[in-house]
């Protein structure tokens, strides 16, 4: 399964760490469980790093709606991600990693 979008052919972004790639696939699987309405702002925010104002403009909604969808979407993503053992251990060890 692709991560959040088809990777471009010439894409060399990110690091070539296969473990991280696998984690990204897992998080994409978790993201797929978030309803579409909240997934779109989540992807635009987390992957493309657009601001709330920009997302509001792109999705033709109000900024507060975007914030609300991001908040609920994050909660849903978190719940879905923590059901995955690999992601659970990644999150648990995140502070230690840094």
């Amino acid at each position, binding site marked *: 399964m692709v991560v*959040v979008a*088809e990777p*471009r052919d010439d894409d060399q972004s990110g690091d070539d760490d296969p473990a991280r790639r696998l984690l990204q696939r897992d998080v994409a*699987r978790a993201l797929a469980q978030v309803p579409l309405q909240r997934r779109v702002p989540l992807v635009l925010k987390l*992957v493309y790093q657009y*601001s709330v104002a920009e997302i509001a403009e792109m999705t033709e909604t109000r900024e507060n709606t975007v914030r609300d969808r991001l908040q609920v979407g994050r909660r849903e993503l978190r719940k879905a991600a923590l059901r995955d053992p690999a992601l659970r251990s990644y*999150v648990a060890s995140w502070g230690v990693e840094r």
Partner: protein
Amino acid sequence: MSARDCDRTRELLDGVPSTSEQQWLQAHARQCEHCRADVALAALLADAPAPAFTEHDELADRRLLDAVLDTARQQHDAAPLLQTPRSPRRAARVVLWAMSAAAVLAVAAVMVTWLARRPAPQRAQLYLAAGDVRAADGTPARVGDRPAGRLRVGRGQAALAFGPAVRVQVASDTQLELPAAPSRELSLRLLQGKIVASVNPARKVAFSVQTAAGRIEVSGTTFSVRAHDGQVTVSVARGSVRVTPSRGDVTTVQRGQQLVLGEKTSRPLLTAAREAIERAGSAIDALAPAGSSAAGLSSVARLFVHSTPSGAMVRLDGIELGRTPVAVHARAGTRLLEVRLDGRQPIREHVVLRAGARLERDFELAVPSASSGAAAPAASSVASAQPPRAKHTRIASRVRRARAARRAARRARARHASARRATHEPSNPSRVTPSQSPAASPSQSPAATPSQSPTPTAAELLGRARALRTARRFADAAKVYRTLIRRFASSRQAASARVSLGYLLLDQLHQPKKALAAFHAYGRRGALAQEAAYGEILALRALGRSSAQIAAMRAFVKRFPKALQRRRIERELRKLDKRR
């Protein structure tokens, strides 16, 4: 750790945290399990692969969103439905439930996808009918009509919208046939004459032109088809088209190529011809922007232009609409309307087109006399016949022009005074540009003060440059930008012109060295500093000055952490670093 800290985390994640805020965020995330998950997942997704998109593309954001939505839909269909069951009985129940849910979902997803992708049956709609345009029964076709069957354009021109994605301009002396009933297939049959089609690639629709010699299929491009005495010529300005001749093999005609149907190889298209097609394509887009629904046209106004005598050429924002009488759907906003007829005084004025409204103009084109200003009485005689809103529009536009002229005069007086003080030389107020419009230049005596000088204002020059750019006359636009920068060096418009000129030189005129100078001239401060800095990077890249480019990219990322281009630049920096 408190609820307030978690709220702050959320706010920081929604915004763009500074370095100290990021440190705080990480410290908090180590202590708070929920926030840690949010921060960790965000970090994981931040460098996930993303779809490619074209920089400098106004549609990029829209396409990007479409791509995200498409992928999200695909993933939705492929999303795992089951978690590992805990007991066999429960597992069986869950499997049964999941299978039925999956079946329902799959059917629903297929239906929704099919319905969403399948275009609704529709008919082409006329949004420009200038001159002699007739429907199949010989009656005059009007703007807003949805003609079926044969459409004849005599002396004049017409434009058709096929849904939101396809715009077709029909030249004079052209005959074509449209589907008799509403159809899902976007197509027309060209019998005689010439059309220019513009298909929005972001919409991913297929459009085809059937001719006696074969079929031309496109999905996102700008091209023209000419059918004359049985010979059909396809010229492609942007994108590519697939040609299926009645006899012979399927051929693809690429951008900048021309193919006569029946011949095996295509030949290069003359630059002038390509520019003409592109100009026509951009004219189509400017009139009814792709994306606006042809049926609703909610952001579009209707404009009717008549003149006495008729047959005068009408231009809107420098785009030729045809000869009067002209009826057109045009994008709402303040637009420059020009009416010209040989041997008559031209008329040039700004009109305010309001969304969903109708504006009618009737001009009497006076014979020019020795004393100028004939256009003004003609225009004022029309004003009394205008509806109240149109009259207000005229007054508002005059007030705006008068204010702009006063501002320019003040600046010019100050500039001339300082120049005289500096050089002790008399000023020369009688500068006249060769391209100056007679309507915009009430002639003055040579001894006139700068306030009465016929020199156009900075705002007028900027408007002129933009109109030329819209009409794809890039070299002329660059000249006007340079004039503006030279004459009004310290004005706001000149600052804006420097950046516009830079991008024009870089993208259209392929002069990166001069573009770099223009971006440098803008300086580091001002509202367009980010655009200037980004332009500098692109210019350096075009010049192959990689070390300077890397330095400029690093400076950009540091100066504009919130810029949309930041991620792209950082990615490129990583690539360049790897290469080194």
